[in-house]
């Protein structure tokens, strides 16, 4: 199993076995993801459910008591539940596509719960958990995946931008937004604000991300670049994106980078709080690499058995983000079974509501796709609309 290593200039081919040509492991198994986060990984709750001390970040999780942890657990379970329902609805022909977040719940809930109402988030397309923490109702996500709208929440009200499908593009938007916060004097004061930008390991290879990093660095923009390294960009492993651990890239741009256990909700919360604090006090930007794993397919259109082996998933199952919280609540904090039953019931209720909403969703009228193209209309679009409506009307029985 390989981990991206620090790059050192090769002295000769012989000193870098396995780099120049694939080893037999690669040949037989295909390229692999990894589950080894390395020594720098910030972790506050182990996969076995043990709370471990961390002198640097404990203070950022000091208020995480039983009640708060129960709340985080509830978030994790509910988000996973509606994510699974989304997958099923796609298989039942109710959604055109679904982008599963399975395995990344803690990375998203921890980051989302660290945000203050006045902060702004720029998601990519998998951030259903962050959406949840920003008060976007899960049903509001459905239109995107049913192909009826591009998101039906008010980004300004929720502090959560619309989903971005173009990989890495939101890093530019987020940097620009953060610059705005800076220009408006929102950095430094009591009501200080910051921006969170969510993207994946694959996105780090995009020019937009690089440009965002450079700009944010040289202008000290208050933006947290939150990279969920889920080990895969569709079928490409992180090994095909970088030769250094991603968080170390920040150093080259001149801002701090940190790797957190993305399956540890407490660590994600603490590290993101720290990162946001840095930004709010004028020390931005910060790169956080949440080291996690995409446990399901890239989307419902993808078949991961074609490029990765099941043993990888089995390793990550042992690091499940929800199970470790449950174990900690039961063993260390004495939470009773009723609590878990109750959360499960709430999750099923949410899933049923999600399903019902989806099935009942009205399809938009055919002129809808032309209706919001230009604020004041355009002759070309108007002509297309007329032609399209006439075509629809040409069917028998059309009113």
């Amino acid at each position, binding site marked *: 199993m390989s981990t991206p290593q620090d790059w050192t200039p090769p002295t000769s081919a012989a000193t870098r076995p396995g780099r120049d040509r694939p080893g*037999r492991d690669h040949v037989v*198994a295909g390229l692999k993801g990894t589950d080894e986060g390395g020594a720098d990984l910030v972790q506050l709750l182990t996969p076995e459910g043990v709370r471990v001390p961390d002198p640097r970040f404990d203070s950022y999780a000091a208020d995480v008591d039983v009640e708060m942890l129960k709340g985080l657990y509830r978030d994790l379970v509910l988000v996973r539940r509606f994510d699974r329902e989304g997958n099923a609805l796609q*298989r*039942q022909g109710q959604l055109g596509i679904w982008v599963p977040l399975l395995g990344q719940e803690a990375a998203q809930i921890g980051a989302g719960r660290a945000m203050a109402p006045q902060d702004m988030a720029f998601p990519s397309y998998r951030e259903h958990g962050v959406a949840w923490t920003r008060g976007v109702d899960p049903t509001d996500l459905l239109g995107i995946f049913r192909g009826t709208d591009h998101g039906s929440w008010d980004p300004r009200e929720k502090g959560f931008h619309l989903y971005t499908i173009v990989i890495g593009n939101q890093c530019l938007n987020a940097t620009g937004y953060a610059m705005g916060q800076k220009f408006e004097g929102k950095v430094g004061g009591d009501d200080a604000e910051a921006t969170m930008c969510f993207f994946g390991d694959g996105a780090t290879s995009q020019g937009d991300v690089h440009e965002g990093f450079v700009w944010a660095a040289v202008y000290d923009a208050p933006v947290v670049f939150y990279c969920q390294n889920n080990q895969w960009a569709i079928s490409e492993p992180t090994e095909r994106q970088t030769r250094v651990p991603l968080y170390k890239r920040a150093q080259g741009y001149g801002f701090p980078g940190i790797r957190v256990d993305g399956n540890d909700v407490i660590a994600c919360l603490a590290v993101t709080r720290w990162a946001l604090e840095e930004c709010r006090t004028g020390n931005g930007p910060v790169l956080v690499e949440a080291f996690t794993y995409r446990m399901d397919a890239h989307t419902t259109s993808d078949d991961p*058995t074609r490029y990765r082996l099941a043993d990888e998933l089995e390793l990550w199952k042992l690091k499940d983000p929800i199970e470790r919280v449950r174990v900690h609540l039961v063993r260390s904090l004495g939470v009773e079974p009723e609590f878990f039953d109750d959360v499960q019931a709430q999750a099923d209720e949410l899933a049923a509501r999600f399903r019902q909403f989806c099935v009942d969703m009205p399809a*938009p*009228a055919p002129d809808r796709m032309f209706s919001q193209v230009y604020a004041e209309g355009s002759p070309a679009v108007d002509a297309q609309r007329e032609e399209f409506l006439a075509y*629809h009307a040409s069917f028998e*029985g059309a*009113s």
Partner: protein
Amino acid sequence: MLREFAMPDVGEGLTEAEVVTWNVAAGDVVTVNQVLCEIETAKAAVELPSPYAGTVGKLLVEPGQVVAVGSPIISIETAEAAAPAVEEDTGAKIGEVGKDGRVANLVGYGARPGAVTRRPRRGTTPPPAPPTPAPVQQSHSAATSRRESGFTAISPGGAGAGAAAGAVPLAKPPVRKLARDLGVDLRSVTPSGPGGVITRDDVQSHVVTPAAPAAVAAVGGVRREPIRGIRKHTAAAMVSSAFTAPHVTEFLAVDVTATMALRDRLRATREYAEVKLTPLAFVAKAVCLAARRTPELNARWDEAAGEIVYFDRMQLGIAAATPRGLIVPNVRDADTLTLRELAAALGELTATARAGRTSPADMAGGTFTITNVGVFGVDTGTPILNPGEAGILAVGAIKPTPWVVDGELAVRTVCQLALSFDHRLVDGEQGSRFLADVGALLTDPGLALTW
């Protein structure tokens, strides 16, 4: 009420899927999201969860059957009363603007019964939807039906789409429009453009001389299977190879008694306890050694560059029959591996292939292929080159055979080898030397010490 669940589009823009297995039977009680069946599409194998709770009425599709997206596959009796009229209404009227300004099934998915039938255009007689594939019918007469046939040509799953072999014909939008205006069904046009694209001229000349659909007179039953997936890929690869590389095939029968004896001795050693040492491993080793003496066999004709590319490493492809079809995964840098490493690599490679887990990366970049037809019990064949490669070796069945040893007839273990090579870059001299070398090594494996 009785609900039907229609085959969903589980990828983006798939038109059909095969039901692989049913996990439920008529009369079973199912819950929402309980897995009903496994299906396979061009993209993936996935499980379909039930959209309804209730009792399974009927399975409407046999395992192995490929059905169009939108066709009902199962009926489930649910506890609820008949659905509200509104819903029934929208099911049949695809694309219609309802009284409330809504339109049903605009984006083409929605598990409603009847969703697969297309509403007729005004002033047309609806074409009968053939329940089984029928020869393509062309209509050139009525202006109205022209539009209809042009339209179905570009909408898979529409009425009559079952007639052609599934694939959507390739043509640029203006050409499609021309075809529609002229009432030409694009599926009946022979493409002449690069990459099988139908050109404007193709459409126009088709109007002049419409090709008569060849009626196939079938005696007894016929079974038609859409050409897709690995079958389609294999076909394209074989056609391109057979008609670009001039193939020469040479044969050699080899006495492999000594190699088989060596194999038995090695198998008894501790080093080989963990691996399955097959005759194929010896053949692989012999191929690597022989290619070192005749590098022309580990090379590639690069037409575009006007060059012959010689490889110093051997990426050894092994043709493997899998449940999904023929695939050729590679043993990387086979020439650097010991016999034991080769045996282990072959074992893992075939296990991976059988499990359907071979990644595209494992199949790319081969430089020479071995096909082990002997496992099917046959003696030899004339293998077709994996496109671009200079050589392919077929290994026949290994069996006791009468053989002349020192002027006397004896029973020896014999195997037939057949080598096909690309005569553009390999001449008879190199091809023969290579084959003779492989044979010599398998006859007397001790020779390897001297090379």
